[in-house]
């Protein structure tokens, strides 16, 4: 970040009244920048005149670190990008390596991957729901969302032993098989969770104050959304039907019957509503996957302890909770990738703030920032 944000602020004269602009540092320590994001705001009264997002406070150089790690080791690192929904991170990396090695995954492992990714999407969107409530001033939905998210994390802990950094999806399959007890618990959770979603709608989604705060605010047109390279619910909130699960199916998503919720006008409320609706769709996918869960092993045989894929390049992408997460992998035939590039959805989604915030109110900054649902671990990698 250059110091252009700190350039002198020019004073403006409006109607003979000399007004001053004010420079405000929102972040990196601010309650609702969702991590260590800093936005350098220039405001006039409550109106934003200039906004410069400043990132990199959490940059750990994943791509650089991957160049000296074994292929198995990198799965552990992927957990740390989007730590709120780490399952798709594991998945996309494994898909890329499997594509590079040309290996096949057993069908049961595929189904389990789908279940876990969708569960993680539910957990991630629950976190979004809660924090967006807090951003708009409602505390209680946050606690309700965490109450339910806790159950999803319990399910993760029961199956893979961790609550946040799972390392569950491995090259050639998944770590452990789902036990019948786990499946029973999952079904119990689904029956419990469905009515809760209706409660959320009553409590927050259709709350008049919440709708006034978010509907029509931060509107992004479909053309703009595509041009900015948004993905996930942010893109679909603008009405663009782009979902990697439908567009370029992986892990057998083509076999599941689900719809892609689309927003109408691309406002904060649409993005929010896409996420809440996606939770319902995810539950639908999980139910279908549970109904036809194939028997068999969960790990492909013959995955080398130290994989050395032949020299080549591969790209894999999945619909992670925050959008299209892609991995570009170059192998030189050695024990570690020659180059790994992460197409992080939050990074692209954040880049639109610079233009989008201009002319908004300070309160709307929080509404817009919350609605694009970034995770700084993924932005900075």
């Amino acid at each position, binding site marked *: *970040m*250059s110091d*252009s944000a700190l350039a002198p602020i020019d004073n403006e004269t409006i109607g003979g009244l000399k007004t001053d602009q004010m420079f405000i540092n929102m972040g990196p320590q601010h309650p609702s920048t969702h991590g260590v994001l800093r936005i350098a705001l220039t405001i006039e009264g409550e109106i934003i005149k200039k906004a410069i997002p400043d*990132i*990199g406070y959490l*940059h750990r*150089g994943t*791509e*650089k*670190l991957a*160049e*000296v*790690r074994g292929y198995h080791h990198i799965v552990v690192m992927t957990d740390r990008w989007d730590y709120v929904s780490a399952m798709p991170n594991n998945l996309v990396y494994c898909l890329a390596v499997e*594509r*590079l090695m040309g290996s096949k995954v057993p069908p049961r492992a595929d189904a389990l991957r789908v279940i876990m990714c969708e569960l993680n999407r539910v957990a991630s969107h629950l976190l979004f729901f809660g924090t967006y409530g807090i951003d708009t001033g409602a505390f209680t939905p946050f606690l309700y969302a965490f109450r339910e998210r806790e159950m999803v994390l319990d399910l993760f802990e029961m199956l893979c032993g961790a609550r946040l950094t799972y390392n569950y999806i491995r090259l050639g399959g998944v770590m452990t098989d789902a036990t019948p007890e786990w499946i029973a618990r999952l079904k119990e959770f689904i029956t419990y969770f469905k009515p809760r979603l209706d409660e959320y709608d009553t409590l927050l989604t259709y709350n008049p104050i919440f709708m006034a705060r978010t509907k029509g605010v931060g509107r992004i047109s479909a053309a*703009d959304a*595509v*041009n*900015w*390279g948004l993905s996930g619910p942010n893109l679909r909130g603008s009405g*663009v*039907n*782009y979902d990697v699960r439908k*567009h*370029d199916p992986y892990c057998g998503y083509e076999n599941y019957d689900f719809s892609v919720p689309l927003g109408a006008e691309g406002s904060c409320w649409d993005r929010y509503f896409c996420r809440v609706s996606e939770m319902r769709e995810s539950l639908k996918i999980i139910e279908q996957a549970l109904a036809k869960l194939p028997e068999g092993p969960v790990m492909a045989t013959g995955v080398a302890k130290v994989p050395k894929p032949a*020299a*080549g*390049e*591969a*790209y894999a*992408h999945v619909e992670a909770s925050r959008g*299209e997460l*892609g991995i*570009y992998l*170059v192998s*030189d*035939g*050695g024990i*570690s990738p*020659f*180059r790994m*590039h992460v*197409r992080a959805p939050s*990074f*692209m989604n*954040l*880049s*639109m703030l610079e*233009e989008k915030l201009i002319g908004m109110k300070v309160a709307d900054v929080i509404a817009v920032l919350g609605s694009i649902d970034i995770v700084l671990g993924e932005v*900075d*990698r």
Partner: protein
Amino acid sequence: MTQDELFAKIQSQFPKIEKAAIQIKDYLTVRLASKDDLIPVAKWLKGIGFDYLDMVTATDYLGPVDMKGYIRQANFNPFLPEGATPEIESAPTAGFPYRPAIDHLWSFVSNADKARVMVKLETPRDGASVPSLAAVFKTANWQERENFDLLGINYEGHQNQTKILTPDFLQGHPLRKDYVHVKDRFDE
């Protein structure tokens, strides 16, 4: 649209474009002849529906990564002699064409056709410079800044080509294979 149809379509418009020798698995990969082609190709692709610039990245092909680019912190271990370093090492692989070049990659997606085309371009490593797509695709803005920051690629015509991820005091471009970490005030 299959890959062959797509390639035929591209080649009918830009005959100089050819298929890349190493295809990115499962996706059509084409190679530009020169960097002057980039903006016309991008604009044409945007016109025929490839309006979603998915990814802008690049790879440095100089050779295996230099271990001096990592801060190799010694384990504190009472059993080990002072300053024993971790064992990770990088080694060249026989037969891989290491060369002083940077391979750029742009990935365009068409939502209507459900198609994706990877456009590659190889430039020399020193003073790597390609035209900026930020004027055509806004999403290229930050991605090009990231590549400038991490790989030291100059994007011609980029309005705000500044560091984005690494701190201001960091010397060099970390993702270059010959990057060597220069000690700064934050190192122990």
